[in-house]
């Protein structure tokens, strides 16, 4: 845990100075962390939809254009893009589609960032300030929205991601309107 604490301090230095240069500390980001009991997946045995908890801190990050812009900046600064690319994935899963292994509400994404996930997602809970984790969660949720995909794939001169709509907080899950995104992988045609 000492090593994790050092990393947090180093990050504070970056934030204060705006310096993006590497620290050469060999401190490890631990990938194991005990759960604090928050439900991490919408899939809850024996429970009906709507029964899972929500976090009041999440509310301010919906319909929040500043949060997603800040989240996009942090997504690069904290090397999220190293694994998830510009949403297309690589070492980590892609974030452009509408599949959410651990849930798509902002508090669920925040929880994933805090706790890490067993197949290699690091736990960032005690290493990144919480407000930044919420901004990152908002941007991650935004990455499958049509406007954000367009911005991230160069389809538009604007690089501004879309704010997360309030509907995305619904317990039943929410998808962008049909035909606007996520259709690409539904049908793949063979070579012509």
């Amino acid at each position, binding site marked *: 845990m000492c090593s994790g604490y050092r*990393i947090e301090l180093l990050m504070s230095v*970056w934030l204060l100075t705006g310096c*993006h*240069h*590497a*620290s*050469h*500390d*060999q*401190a*490890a*980001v*631990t*990938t*194991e962390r005990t759960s604090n009991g928050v439900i991490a997946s919408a899939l809850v045995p024996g429970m009906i939809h709507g029964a899972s908890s929500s976090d009041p801190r999440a509310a301010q990050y919906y319909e929040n254009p500043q949060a997603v812009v800040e989240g996009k900046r942090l997504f*690069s*600064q*904290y*090397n999220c893009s*190293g*694994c998830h*690319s*510009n*949403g*297309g*994935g*690589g*070492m*980590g*899963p*892609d974030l*452009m*589609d509408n599949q959410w292994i651990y849930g798509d509400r902002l508090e669920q994404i925040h929880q994933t960032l805090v706790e890490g996930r*067993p*197949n*290699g*997602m*690091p736990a960032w809970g005690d290493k990144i300030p919480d407000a930044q984790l919420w901004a990152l969660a908002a941007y991650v949720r935004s990455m499958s929205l049509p406007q954000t*995909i*367009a911005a*991230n*794939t*160069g*389809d538009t001169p604007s690089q501004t991601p879309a704010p997360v709509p309030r509907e995305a907080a619904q317990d039943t899950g929410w998808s962008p309107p049909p035909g606007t995104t996520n259709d*690409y*992988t539904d049908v*793949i*045609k*063979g*070579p012509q």
Partner: protein
Amino acid sequence: MCRERILTLLLVGSVPLAATAQTVPSPVPAAEVFTRESIGHALAAPTPQAGHTAPSQANAPPDDGQWTMPSKNYASTRFSSLQDISPQNVAQLTPLLSFSLAVNKGQEAAPIVADNTMFVVTAYPNYVYALDLTRPGAPLKWRFSPKPVPASQGVACCDVVNRGGSVDHGKYIFNTLDGQTIALDVNTGLPLWRTQLANINLGETITMAPLVAQGRVYVGDSGGELGVRGWLAALDEETGKLLWRAYSTGPDRDVLIGPGFKPFYAADRGTDLGVSSWPPQAWKIGGGTVWGWVTYDAELDTVYYGVANPGPWNQEQRPGDNKWTAGIFARDPASGQARWFYQYTPHDEHDYDGVNEQLLLDMPFAGQMRKVLVHPDRNGYVYVIDRRSGQVLSADPFGPVNSSRGVDLQTGRLILNDDKATRLGRTTHDICPTASGAKDWEPSSFSPDTGFIYIPHENICMDWQNLEVNYIAGTPYVGADVHMKPGPGGHRGALTAWDPVNRRPAWVVKENFPIWSGTVATGGGLVFYGTMDGWFKAVDAGTGKELWKYKVDSGVIGQPISYRGPDGHQYIAVLSGVGGWAGAVVAGPVDPRDGSAALGFINVMSDLPKYTTAGGTLYVFWLPH
């Protein structure tokens, strides 16, 4: 040519970029790369009459029909002298059996055959299967599950591959993604020892095939895209105890450089160059991993291995030659002390790891027989190096090259093309070869009958822009936005039969997709290889003519082998299962709409899902009798 380029740009400009991310981009124009004649160099003209090219008997003993190590022999010729299967009868080659590996990720391993048992290690979670070749259907003798830590998947840069194990003295020895080396009893499948070598919390994994030679096991780390510090370790084969570990960067005492270090070129002489050729402290996170092929030379009692790229990819964050990355070490096996080093790509700025295979051959050069190693590098050149001294005798391009203008054979230094330098805030277009190289890890073979080296490789180029990157332990440390594209001609792969004596290709077979499988050459006059769209093929070793092909269940990126079965007949085996860096678009959790995904490979492979699906199967082929 200029007009063509302008037209291409206009076309791209008129189509939404998001659409181009889902279609394969236009190839780089042929005029963008240098000709072989203009950048290939040798210290002397070819003298083929001075002798026959072949490995020495010490490094390639007479074929016993087994396949106990991925490279077949110390010389790494991957040549099977078996002759049952020939150009005359290969049309009758047919599957004898298939066996599901229960893992649908990239399968890069070579099946191993020893004492009539076949051993296969899979991609993560690194199952090991032992199959009894003496009984119909080759039933399972045992299966071992090493249970690597699942989080290791999250620090594996380019799929969760494994390049195979080896059998020696009753043990099957292999590595796990989470950094262990394990020796199993070949009869029971029970571990005799397991040694933890890599630390995933620092971003280290292990994907390479260990080399077992003279009672030692050589293992190196992966993780050059995560700011790790590369190393090669030697373990005692009987106990698994660490004998020595040589780092690729840092002070001489860590690199195991001492009085016996005699590099051929002046640029490699000096004290603690592994520190002084970096910005302060950068060597600690500078990469130089050892994830490719380690070779033992029984004649000169020397170990050779290539060192991977420096990190991060953004070269502007690490001015200097960045020793000892992107080069090759020769070491004393007992002490680990370095004998010589040669840097293929000083201050690499295109991700040109130096980890590809080295074939140990006796070859005529300048009128006499020389003990050389031949190495086709990611940077696009086939190097012929005197393996006693580390002197480069010749370096010739075998794929598309414009990132450099040849190798200066007086200084040994690669001559960079400033037009293809990589920069922050500016995209450099049409760099050849691409980051994964004119050729990646997939190993070549050599036939002493033809004298050709059968190089499976890529024909891919790229656009590159540097990005500022922070070091955070256990996360990617890359700093580049890369988009790959096909090389001249549009075919993305090639099998080149390279004539090392005359320094030219004898023939080239073009493939639509990059060839990410190894090759095996046989005494019957055939060369076998697989394609990423799922064809397993045999071509004539002399002419390259395609003589046979069979469609397997998934793309092939494994290493084919040839062996003699218990009945005395020749068999061919290979793993299917597409993946790896090039196959991430099929095997990985990747969205093809983002061309920068999987470190830029998706841009040039977005059509692969039309041709194949994920899989993982062992195939054995035979001539029915």
